[in-house]
């Protein structure tokens, strides 16, 4: 299988801690089924950060929710494999999944309000997260919550543990959510646009905190974002997703130095970079997943597209060392 070759070609690492293969997620809509994720494959390696990048509606958040089997109806995982430490999470019972969520894989969101309960103090919520998964007393859990808040840089952690979410600033709420996500010592943290709602100065603090926690705890991070500049500062590896599929994946350095897929190239070039003229732009907009172009799904916006691109869909193929692109026209080494 292609994904196996992907592994063998990734230098210096043995095996991914988390791997998604051929994921398909569909939503029933009034206008027919909508395939939000349509054959996405990506791999997260131990102690590393994989940036999953794409524009709104490309399926990046749904992919993340699928890993934890948190896709809500009318959404449904159609097929795919999610290997965590080599075992397929899709095969687990809900009860077994509950043990994975929070304890082994936890998740943080753009909006801490989605994860924090407004009627409990943040200290109680962090303690509760610990008590669900471990046999500790209420008092021990409370102490552990304060200690965790201190580790994530919450000022005055003992008194802030008694605060309710609405009493905290956006940056502090994000710290509290990170504390809750990490208190059980998970192996994997899935972070879905964790800094998108924050001011840049606060974003820098939170990104820094995540990198620090990664080093201290050996965390592997799946970092989902639309922001390529943020990805370039936190990710070791990048997977670019377009209309439900990963179209390019490689170590971050190689991707930013020499992107192979025309979509990735265009995304990088559209970022204003100080030159005063017109910006590069991508014509048109991402396709409706119910009405994809035939062949390559980027073909209707691609400057390189020819007849082959409009007829048959390219698969991820090796384009360089640990570098994969799904494009008939991609430059190869």
């Amino acid at each position, binding site marked *: 299988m292609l994904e196996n070759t992907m592994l063998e070609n990734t230098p210096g690492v043995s095996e991914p801690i988390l791997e998604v293969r051929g994921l398909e997620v569909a939503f029933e809509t009034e206008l027919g089924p909508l395939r939000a994720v349509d054959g996405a494959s990506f791999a997260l390696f131990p102690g590393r950060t994989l940036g999953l990048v794409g524009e709104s509606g490309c399926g990046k958040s749904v992919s993340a929710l699928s890993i934890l089997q948190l896709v809500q109806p009318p959404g449904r995982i159609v097929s795919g494999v999610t290997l965590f430490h080599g075992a397929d999470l899709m095969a687990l019972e809900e009860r077994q999944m509950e043990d994975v969520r929070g304890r082994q894989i936890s998740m943080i969101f753009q909006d801490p309000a989605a994860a924090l309960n407004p009627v409990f103090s943040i200290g109680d919520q962090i303690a509760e997260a610990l008590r669900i998964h471990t046999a500790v007393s209420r008092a021990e859990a409370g102490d552990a919550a304060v200690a965790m808040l201190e580790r994530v840089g919450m000022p005055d952690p003992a008194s802030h543990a008694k605060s309710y979410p609405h009493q905290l600033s956006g940056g502090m709420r994000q710290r509290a959510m990170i504390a809750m996500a990490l208190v059980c010592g998970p192996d994997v943290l899935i972070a879905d646009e964790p800094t998108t709602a924050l*001011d*840049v*100065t606060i974003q820098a603090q939170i990104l820094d905190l995540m990198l620090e926690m990664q080093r201290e705890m050996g965390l592997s991070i799946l970092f989902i974002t639309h922001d390529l500049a943020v990805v370039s500062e936190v990710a*070791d590896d990048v997977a670019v997703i377009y209309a439900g599929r990963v179209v390019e994946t490689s170590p971050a350095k190689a991707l930013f130095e020499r992107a192979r897929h025309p979509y990735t190239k265009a995304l990088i070039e559209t*970022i*204003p970079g100080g030159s005063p003229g017109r*910006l*590069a*732009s991508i014509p048109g907009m*991402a396709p409706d997943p119910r009405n994809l172009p035939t062949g390559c799904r980027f073909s209707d916006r691609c400057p390189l597209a020819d007849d082959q691109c409009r007829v048959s869909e390219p698969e991820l193929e090796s384009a360089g060392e640990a570098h994969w692109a799904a494009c008939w026209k991609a430059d190869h080494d």
Partner: protein
Amino acid sequence: MRERPIGRPAGRRIMTDAPLMIVKDLVKEFPHKRAGGRSETMRAVNGVSFHIRRGETLALVGESGSGKTTLARAAAMLHPPTSGSVVFEGREIATLKRRSLKGARKRMQMIFQDPYASLNPRLPVSAIIAEPLAIHSLGNRAERRAEALRLAQSVGLKAQDLDRYPHQFSGGQRQRIAIARALALKPALIFADEPVSALDVSIQSQILNLLRDLREEYGPAFLFIGHDLAVVRHFADRVAVMYMGRIVEEAASETLFNTPRHPYARALIAAAPRIGQGKRAPGAMRGAARDIPSPFDPPPGCPFHPRCPMAEDICKTTPPELELVEPGHQAACHFT
């Protein structure tokens, strides 16, 4: 109807020294009830002065809550200022009553961040674009429709789009509609509050290019509010950095980004992520420490001192004034 500026060659943006808008000592306070019923005022804009020349783009940057949007709305007389002066095209408008503002309103238009909220969902695109013309009783129905078509085409919409409704368009297309409407009266000044922040990057660059083209063609001045410094640097001629209701630094765009003088401006620029530097080492946090103080309880002295690496005793007691550090470059810091 007014003469159509169609066919004016591109590249004719005329920026002159003639000030279009001069804002002086502008203050905007909001009443606020504390828990327990005690009333107090929150000073969202605290004595701000700036000017915009004809055809010039001035950007306001700063963290959320710094007063950017309130300042723009006060200058546009959407929320009349508590005190201070706003001279627009040579006329004091801060003291005018609603009715007398109509003339000035015609010469200023707004574009907002959220094109979903700013377009009337019950009107077809033709009526949305032509609405400002109708409000000011310009032309008859047929003329307004013809003008709406011309405007729609100038922002990249098609003739058949005129009879569709906002919900039938994507975010980027809606922003084009909002821009066409803003251009209908050929305003001298456009307030653009985060006009591309809600858009995906591939769409964001399309809209920024459109705004640049229209600026070349029609030559309006912009007061441009943005939090994405790369976008601001690309689009603005001059930049004012706001912090807690004040302008703390102001300079030509390239000067500000290359040699920021105020520690807050430096922190803001350092904190903005950039491509091409590789993964950061943990602990290499750039930007300002701590949280933004509450606007209800601003620190005494320089409002940035609790977060400032350079703060000394004087900063805790004496607020620094905005002073010239070189021609065209002002900063409010005791240690620039």
